[in-house]
């Protein structure tokens, strides 16, 4: 452990990142340059500092040169800071005495055409980083107790799956459904692609699972009214049939699914002879389809400028319903007008083949020449034949997309997570953290995140349960120590203006009973807004103190503090 009094002994490791950095600027020269900076006692360049080899070099550097501060000049703290912090910590250097200098994302990547300027900028950035490192102070992470309970919002197939898995893992789990019955979309479906199982049988099985587990509490006709607190310790108010219940919850899972799109104005939709696939499902369920010439139109209201996405379940839904119609009566003519048929993978492509073999007719159309639905005929331009086809119909079925719920926004605000442009929930990282939110302890699964089929809703339900379990499997949770605080010696500066309370996006600041400003450390994300706003400079942001930031600025200007 290095204490404050110790002279800084800084090590600088400059990463080539394959050729991401080294391909543009000379990392060896940067390492040499770093040697000339104040307090730097050791430098090295690495091909990949994050590789096991690179990490071993950091460790040896710390051991052999007695480093008490470490700088890595490389890619981005977004993905790599935890790794390097962990590495220095294991060698006995406080993790907050590690400083990241970003010379890839904010340098070689954005100045690809200017190698010389990029090299100079890298030197500036490293000089600034070294100046800051000398002023860094050791900090400890905050450790809080975690309640091993979970709240799942939404009782569709993804929510039921997630809740069941968590309960099976031994966690007290609360499943909140606003309708009177569990099931979501599944309740109204008839048979399911890709194996023609009866939707109601699947639903009954899922319901039986959740209803028979004693760790699982089902709250129907229920809504989440308010959420306070933080990971491991959320205080949740639920209104169930008019009664308010208070719950202490460790993790929250969002599984609120989607809404349906009513295609008013598209192809003369009227709900009678021009209906949606969803309406067709109910008709099939009630054995209420008399039509003999059925035409389905794909991508109605999707993949256009308004909704630039593919809803991914509607092609399969069309194939499914076409096959059911054919099986019910092989004399029925079914045509599907499509742009690109979306049947990826093994099961779905097999299903597509089955539909072709059953005599379903497929006609491509292009968005430049949309089909038109007339009295008894549908006109579609067939590019392949170069002419208009006229298809008679007595039932026209529109394949509409799944759309996000209108009230997602309110829920998103309550749990402090973002939505993407179509109103679906936005995860922390599209590829590597698909079930997580950036907010700790909150997860998402199923079609609330993006339109998906039941297979994916189920696997995502399990997935969110696993991610949630990584948190509540432990009695305590460690959170970042770089937070804001109002030190006692600054209390006299605070005038109680409450500006900090208003600006904090994480609701971390309050006034306590004594009317003093109080900052809840676990809630604070160290964003720094309060510190920057406080006109009296009463609030200090750890790891980003005025002194630390000024030292960087002076170093940039070539002056020392």
């Amino acid at each position: 452990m290095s204490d404050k009094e110790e002279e800084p002994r800084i090590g600088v490791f400059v990463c080539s990142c394959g050729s991401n950095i080294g391909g543009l600027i000379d990392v060896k020269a940067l390492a040499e340059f770093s040697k000339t900076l104040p307090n730097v006692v050791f430098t090295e360049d690495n091909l990949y500092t994050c590789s096991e080899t690179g990490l071993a070099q950091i460790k040896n550097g710390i051991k052999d040169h007695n480093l008490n501060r470490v700088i890595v000049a490389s890619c981005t703290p977004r993905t790599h800071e935890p790794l390097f912090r962990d590495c220095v910590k294991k060698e006995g250097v406080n993790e907050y005495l590690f400083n990241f200098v970003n010379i890839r994302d904010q340098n070689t990547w954005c100045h690809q055409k200017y190698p010389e300027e990029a090299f100079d900028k890298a030197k500036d950035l490293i000089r600034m980083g070294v100046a800051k490192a000398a002023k860094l102070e050791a900090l400890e992470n905050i450790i809080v107790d975690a309640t091993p309970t979970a709240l799942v919002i939404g009782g569709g197939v993804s929510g039921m799956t997630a809740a069941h898995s968590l309960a099976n893992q031994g966690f007290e789990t609360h499943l909140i459904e606003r309708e009177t019955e569990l099931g979501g979309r599944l309740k109204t479906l008839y048979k399911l692609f890709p194996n023609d199982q009866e939707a109601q049988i699947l639903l009954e099985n899922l319901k039986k699972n959740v209803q028979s587990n004693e760790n699982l509490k089902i709250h129907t006709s229920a809504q989440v009214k308010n959420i306070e607190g933080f990971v491991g310790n959320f205080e949740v108010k639920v209104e169930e049939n008019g009664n308010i219940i208070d719950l202490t919850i460790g993790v929250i899972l969002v599984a609120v699914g989607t809404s349906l799109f009513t295609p008013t104005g598209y192809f003369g939709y009227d709900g009678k002879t021009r209906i949606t696939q969803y309406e067709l499902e109910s008709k099939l369920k009630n054995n209420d389809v008399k039509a003999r010439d059925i035409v389905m139109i794909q991508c109605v209201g999707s993949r256009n400028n308004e909704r630039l996405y593919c809803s991914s379940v509607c092609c399969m839904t069309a194939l499914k319903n076409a096959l059911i119609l054919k099986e019910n009566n092989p004399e029925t003519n079914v045509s599907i007008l499509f742009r690109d048929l979306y049947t990826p993978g093994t099961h779905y492509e097999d299903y597509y083949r089955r539909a072709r073999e059953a005599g379903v007719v497929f006609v491509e159309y292009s968005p430049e020449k949309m089909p038109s639905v007339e009295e008894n005929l549908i006109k579609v331009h067939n590019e392949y034949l170069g002419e208009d086809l006229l298809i008679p119909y007595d039932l026209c079925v529109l394949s509409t997309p799944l759309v996000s719920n209108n009230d997602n926004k309110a829920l998103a605000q309550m749990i402090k997570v973002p939505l993407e442009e179509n109103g679906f929930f936005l995860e922390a990282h599209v590829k590597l953290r698909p079930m997580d939110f950036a907010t700790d302890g909150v997860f998402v699964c199923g079609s609330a995140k993006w339109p998906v089929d039941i297979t994916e809703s189920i696997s995502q339900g399990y997935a969110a349960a696993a991610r949630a379990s990584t948190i509540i499997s432990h009695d305590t949770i460690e959170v970042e120590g770089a937070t804001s605080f109002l030190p006692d010696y600054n209390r006299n500066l605070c005038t109680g203006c409450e500006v900090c309370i208003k600006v904090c996006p994480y609701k971390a600041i309050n006034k306590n009973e004594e009317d003093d400003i109080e900052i809840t450390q676990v809630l604070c994300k160290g964003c720094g807004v309060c510190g920057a706003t406080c006109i009296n400079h009463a609030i200090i942001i750890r790891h980003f103190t005025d002194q630390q930031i000024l030292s960087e600025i002076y170093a940039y200007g070539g002056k020392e503090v």
Partner: protein
Amino acid sequence: MGENSKSVVVIGAGIAGIQAALDLGDMGIQVHLVEKMPCIGGRMAQLDKTFPTLDCSICILAPKLSECYRHDNITLYTLSEIQKIGGSVGNFSVDVLKHARYVKEDVCTNCGDCATICPVRGITNFFEANLVTQTAAQIAFPAAVPAAYRIDPSKCLYLNYEICGLCYQNCGADAIDFTQKDSVLSLDNVGAIIVATGLDLAEDIHTLNIYGYQKCDNVVTAMELERLICASGPQAGHLSRLTDGKHPKKIAFLQCIDSRSQKGQMYCSSVCCMYTTKEAMIAYEHDNELESYVFYIDMRAGGKGFQKFLQRGAKEYNIKYVKSKISHIEVDKDDNPIITYEDYETSEINQLTVDLVVLATCIIPSRGINKLADVLGIDLDHYDFVKTNPFLPVETSIEGIYTCGCAREPMDIPRSVAEASGAAARAAEVIKGG
């Protein structure tokens, strides 16, 4: 929660296996991660960038590789395969055959001196999609985990004829150890098993001659292109033709090669529509004069942000999408491929001469899957992917054995990662629920 006495065995350390192992490890469950190759990472380690955000693949993967390696609850077995299993859910016993590396993993400094001196050259290099060769002392890529070389026992002169030994003399770290032997480790008290053996590609089993592949070096597969445009690949990221080193100005991407076909595989590989646009974008970033043509049947882009990605491709990256059917490919005297195709928009037969052709080849099940399925006793589907029920997506035919990622169906990284967490949850239910 108390200590969990039962462990989980994860087979295959691609992104799916890695994610499953990390989730279980983070829940406090002991994991044995078994990988047949000398290092972990699977196919994702070979990719340049990834759709739809164009993150550099190895950059986002590397921290996960390290995390796996250092995790207190994860034991990594590379060069290893499953030899035998016994027992049933909650209490399997698993025998792992670990092949000798002939290099001490914790001593090797990854300096590469052994590879430099080794006289056996010209060995195929799987990681670089066989575009370059390697010696008998090998490492897949510089950031490989574990960061240790290995000696290829089928090619090393010493191991076969007891001559040479140059690497042994040259290794400053004294890491080479020819006395290592293959060994069998018996793992007891295994609660659950996860199969995450991933994918192979059509070119691994077929010649693909009708597309000019292997007849003309200017016809490459998508995986080869990933390596060719990758900054750490054999051309250091400067895409040029293998025949004459010219920078291509016109590239044709041919979709559904061996997928969705009576002659190849009947299914759709799910990811090639998207990675093609990605590859065309990256190639364009290297050279703004580039024109790309994508010859496709259906453009399958259902994931988050995918339609927008395609729109960007067409608008900003000079990509032209041609709905069409490919007839065949010939080569002119300058080695330029000529594509003959039927245009769906006009129903005319056309020809296009390009500098480079890239084949989006079919994803096939991992080649060792039949053998593994026999050992585990699990069912495969009619394409040899691990058989699952659509509504029990991570369950195999045997209770307590789960699956995820491309082992069970072709899918992209986000979905593989999600399913891996899903399989981890099911395994955790066995371990924690008792």
